[in-house]
């Protein structure tokens, strides 16, 4: 419940402060968000499975985001442009769906 509140708090803060991302962040922010969503969903799943550990969550969250951003950065550097960010989003999307499926099964079973 508290984690959900934190999430909502972040959303509300974003809505209220209404910041605009600096231009150089434009290609990376969406990918970072998707990676973070993936990590958060994974955490939700492990919560349901009662295997949640916040240290793990922190590590996976941060590394997910960093790696996703680095991949996109690499794509930019070696001339893939947005292609690599598409790849990252697709892979993360599949993972999110997989996790969501597990989550749904676990929840319905409980």
């Amino acid at each position: 419940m508290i984690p959900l509140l934190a999430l909502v708090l972040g959303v509300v803060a974003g809505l209220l402060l209404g910041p605009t991302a600096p231009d150089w962040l434009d290609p990376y922010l969406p990918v970072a968000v998707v990676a973070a969503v993936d990590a958060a969903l994974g955490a939700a799943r492990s919560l349901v499975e009662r295997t949640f550990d916040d240290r793990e969550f922190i590590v996976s969250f941060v590394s997910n985001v960093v790696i996703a951003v680095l991949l996109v950065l690499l794509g930019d550097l070696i001339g893939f442009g947005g292609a690599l960010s598409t790849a990252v989003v697709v892979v993360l999307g599949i993972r999110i769906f997989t996790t969501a499926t597990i989550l749904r099964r676990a929840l319905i079973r409980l």
Partner: protein
Amino acid sequence: MAASAAKPPRPEPAGEPSAEPVAGAGRDPAPAAAGEPDAPGPADPQPADPQPADPQPADEGRDGVHRVGDEGDPVAGGAVARLTEAEAGDPVARYVATAKPAEGEPGAAEGDLVALGVAAAEPAVAEGEPAARDEEVAEPDTAEGESGARDETIAGAGAGAGAGEAAGGESVTGVAPPAEPGAETGPVGIRLRRVVTLVLLAALGFGGVVAARSAEPSFSLATARPDELAASLGAIGAEDRALATKEGRLRREADSAGTPGASPIPGGASGPAGGRGAASGGGADAERTRADELAILAGTVAVSGPGLELTIRDPHRAVDASVLVDALQELRDAGAEAIEIAGVRAGVSTYVADEPGRGLIVDGTSVAPPYVLRVVGDAHTLDQALRIPGGVLDTVTARDGAQASVRTSEHIEIRALRPAPSPRYARPAG
């Protein structure tokens, strides 16, 4: 780990039967998840060797060992810890020990997208887990002791990529089981982690909103495409004209209402002059001001003011009349109020023609390069107008050997005059 050791008595009735199938289900997926780093090869021979030699309990113990070997780092922590419990001699502990890594494995495999086949084995695992976990939840201590196994599962679910890092940390803590709970799960550490978790979640929400916001089609001049800029410019121009028209109308209304004596002054372009006329109030003053404006327009008086000097050097006679006409038009567009081309004052009827072999003709006067254009107007605007990509300066530079230079100045004086126009036919109407 001591906590884990305390657990077995509880799960005994429920945990034992449920753990077994899990262990069985878990064993299969591990090799099946070929994409995972676990090596099915070493996994098989290891239990195979000791199995015939050792009786049942030893076999269980080996099971733990084999897991340490085959899982690599992720499970190492939990498995080693469990192995020590298993050696304690409680058969239930062994069952749990084998069951936990088994859970960890599919967890990691699920995290790995490539190993889709493993997903088939998941339901069994999902079933087994809640059953096994229910007891653990009842006992908080147990939950702590199991963090090893949990870590793996989350590592798998959270980040296939991050699993490596996470695993590194785990194996270190896992190898030294007694040190782990005390050092890593102190109250401060737990609180800190919890806070960081919440902060990360808040950051996710925040970042999501920011990303959504920046994804909105916001119109930024810096990143706009040329056609968008042109459309925007057109819209601004239309708005500008509408405002100028409105200003002129309002000014005329103000003039006729406030200063009846003053003659109505055309609005729009002569805004400042109109203001002066209204302020002075005297009819004669307004007339004089208007006469001055017209004289400047017609080029019958010398003028001075801010502006710029454009010098076109053309050693090879490559600059023709069209270049100067373009320059003249560009300067007029940019708000030039008085222009002198190579010593000839430009007016409404100014023309430029080619004179082959010698230079150009401006209003009947032969001129030779370098051509110096002196312009009075807003220096910055004029300068920018000349520097537009593909504009006057670029055009001149593209000609053979021609060069153009611009010097802006606060004080440009134009002394060349035009003869006063004396219309023969046109008369003011009305």
